[in-house]
């Protein structure tokens, strides 16, 4: 028993319910509650309180600090890092400290998104948009960011990736490092406020990062939000969809010989929780020859760092079972979803290829 039901016992000073550690912060409780009870926030605050009393273990530190670790490892080539992290021996050692041996750890990309984007040639004198890349895109999957930049270049935008942006703080909060999350929020909000002043929109491709800004920050650090103003970070796919609808981007025409594409789409829980619908399937369906099935089969089970943990790996696979089955049984070879760790988990659970929708969009736009 956790969530609001346990809160009254907490208020009475009774000791914490162990099962609190098993909340994945997927936010389906927030989606189901008709009365706006912030169930997931109650859980996360209680967990932070527990961590204040008893420091989180090394494993929790590691999964919460992907950004810091990537920085430390920067001098090493990706192949070495990946060999270092993903060989059977290391996986055994990691397993000992609580990172499940079988869990689908993401691999380091040869270069970070930040280092790649610096060298991209973007249109001069263009309209500006700022991009919050998030750790997953920056460290493991730069292609998502590059594809976004190229799609927006087409619409006459130059994409800035501010140096001041750091990890959104969600993995820090989920693992109980509230103080560090607060420091990160402070840094990010300062950047967001600067762009707001300039009238430049800020967008993100990762639904969890965005949810962190638009919802969690308000719940956890209201004083920071008060100081810097609204954390108005937009959804990148909604931004593009709006451009398409106002003729800011031309889609290829429907004609004979359009190559048929069939995708199955998974809506990440943290996107559903935003309450703005699913812009990606809507957008992709406007492209010639494209069919998109919505899997609509619930959570994939990974929930950020949850599914990597030894004691939660099996639960995480079980949560994702329904989705994996739906995807396996679907004729589409490629899965499309916005969230990086969802992609990781779906690849692991189904063996199918997984892409961010903006990558699909770019490929089809480039082909014309």
């Amino acid at each position: 028993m956790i969530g609001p039901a346990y809160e009254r016992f907490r208020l009475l000073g009774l000791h914490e319910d162990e099962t609190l550690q098993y909340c994945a912060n997927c936010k389906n409780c927030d989606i189901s509650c008709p009365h706006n009870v912030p169930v997931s926030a109650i859980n996360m605050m209680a967990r932070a309180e527990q961590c204040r009393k008893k420091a989180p273990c090394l494993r929790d530190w590691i999964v919460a600090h992907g950004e810091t670790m990537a920085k430390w490892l920067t001098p090493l080539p990706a192949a070495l890092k990946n060999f270092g992290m993903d060989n059977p021996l290391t996986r055994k050692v990691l397993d000992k400290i609580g990172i499940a041996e079988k869990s689908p750890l993401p691999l380091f990309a040869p270069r970070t998104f930040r280092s790649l984007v610096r060298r991209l040639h973007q249109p001069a004198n263009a309209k500006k948009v700022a991009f919050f890349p998030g750790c997953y895109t920056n460290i493991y999957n730069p292609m998502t960011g590059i594809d976004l930049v190229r799609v927006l270049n087409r619409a006459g935008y130059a994409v800035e990736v501010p140096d001041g942006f750091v990890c959104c703080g969600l993995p820090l909060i989920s693992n109980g490092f509230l103080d560090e999350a607060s420091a990160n929020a402070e840094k990010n909000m300062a950047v967001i406020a600067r762009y707001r002043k300039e009238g430049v929109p800020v967008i993100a491709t990762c639904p969890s990062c965005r949810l962190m800004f638009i919802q969690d920050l308000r719940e956890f650090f209201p004083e920071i939000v008060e100081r810097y103003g609204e954390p108005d970070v937009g959804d990148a796919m909604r931004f593009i969809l709006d451009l398409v609808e106002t003729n800011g981007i031309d889609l290829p025409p429907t004609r004979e010989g359009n190559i048929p594409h069939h995708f199955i789409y998974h809506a990440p829980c943290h996107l559903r929780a935003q309450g703005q619908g699913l812009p990606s399937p809507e957008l992709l369906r406007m492209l010639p020859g494209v069919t998109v099935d919505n899997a609509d089969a619930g959570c994939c089970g990974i929930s950020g760092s949850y599914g990597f943990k030894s004691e939660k790996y099996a639960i995480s696979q079980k949560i994702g079972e329904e989705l994996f089955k739906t995807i396996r049984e679907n004729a589409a070879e490629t899965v499309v979803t916005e969230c990086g760790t969802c992609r990781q988990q779906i690849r692991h659970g189904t063996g199918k290829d997984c892409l961010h929708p903006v990558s699909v969009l770019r490929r089809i736009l480039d082909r014309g």
Partner: protein
Amino acid sequence: MNRKTDVIVIGTGLTGLTAALAASRFGASVRLIATGAGALSISNGCIDLLGYVNGTLVEAPFAVMENLPANHPYRLIGREAVGQAMDFLQVELKGACPLNGAADDEGRAVNTLLPTVAGTLKPSWLFPDELDPRPLFSAKKVLVAGIKGLRDCSPALVAAGLGRQSCLRGVDFQKTTLPDPFDGVHRAVSPLDIARFVSTDKGLGWLLTSLGRWAGKTDVILLPPVCGCAAGGTVIKHLRSELRCHVEEMLSVPPGVGGLRLRDALRQALHEAQIDVIENAPCVSAEIFDGRCDSVTTAGPGGQMRHAAGTFIVATGGILGGGVTVTPDEARESIFGLPVAMPKDILARSGEKIFDAHPLSRMGVGVDASLRALDAKGDVFCDNVFFAGRTLGGYDDTAEKSGNGVAVATGWTAARAACGFCHTGVSS
């Protein structure tokens, strides 16, 4: 602004789900705007049509609908529409969650009585296989089974209560308590916990073993709603054949499990009809010009968003669901701010006895025969906005036992009206 659709349905209770599916079947493009899961997800999954009128038990609902007050939703839309809506639901759910009704000796459709964990009988109209009570009324021996750790079902209470019912006179009630399926847990167990367990092979095994010694030794086994989470009756059919007797679930206090099964089946139908669902998006306002609604605005965590449509169906529930907002002084419909009549005197808002009728329950939006809201002067407020379900006034679902009936009947009728079908309601 979101792309325009033909029909926007607001609310995902039984009313909204029915309306969205019906509108789609009438050929419209439909978008469903949702926040929260609705009363269906915690209730039992039977469709009560009309169980009592002025406290008198109803046998054949359609025969007495004309005795209802003129502003009752059934009178407004007409009993023909009510019948069509019930048929619609049965046809739509035929595969995934078949719903049956009872008939009397002459084959006339009638209400049936469903046993509850409180030891009472409740009149209802359509029920899924798990709730099929018919063999109960010819049974000689009935076993009432509770489960250790499940607090909301006491076999002694059920047996004593049902034993007092005249239609069950002479029945030999036996009682048993099945062993704790979880070997003790640190919190109260709900029927839903056990139903989830019974959905697994291990859980089904536990249930069969626990009931094994009664196999073939009783006519009916009454269980709390624990026979799996999926609609379609697979678990209950298996139990019946293995235990060689009729097995039936009793209606329970929330979470009733049956409602979730029905909800999943409807959601699946919506998914197959490719209806867009926008989740976690409370609708906060509407943009109205010249008596027509152009769009509604939602305000989810991600921010405000406008949704344009040709017509709108408001299925936001009553006071409990959030469709009607009440303060000590006034009551209003929550999105459009329509006035809802409420007795001035606080004491006049509730009845004497808690389980009887309450004026508060009859509060809701006043509508015309095509379910368009009427303003304070009695004029149609907006041409293209239709109201349905618990947000309507003029009925007391608890006292009448008409909750899901009104939800389906008005949801379907609103969809038909919204899709431009001519109104055929007659309150003969």
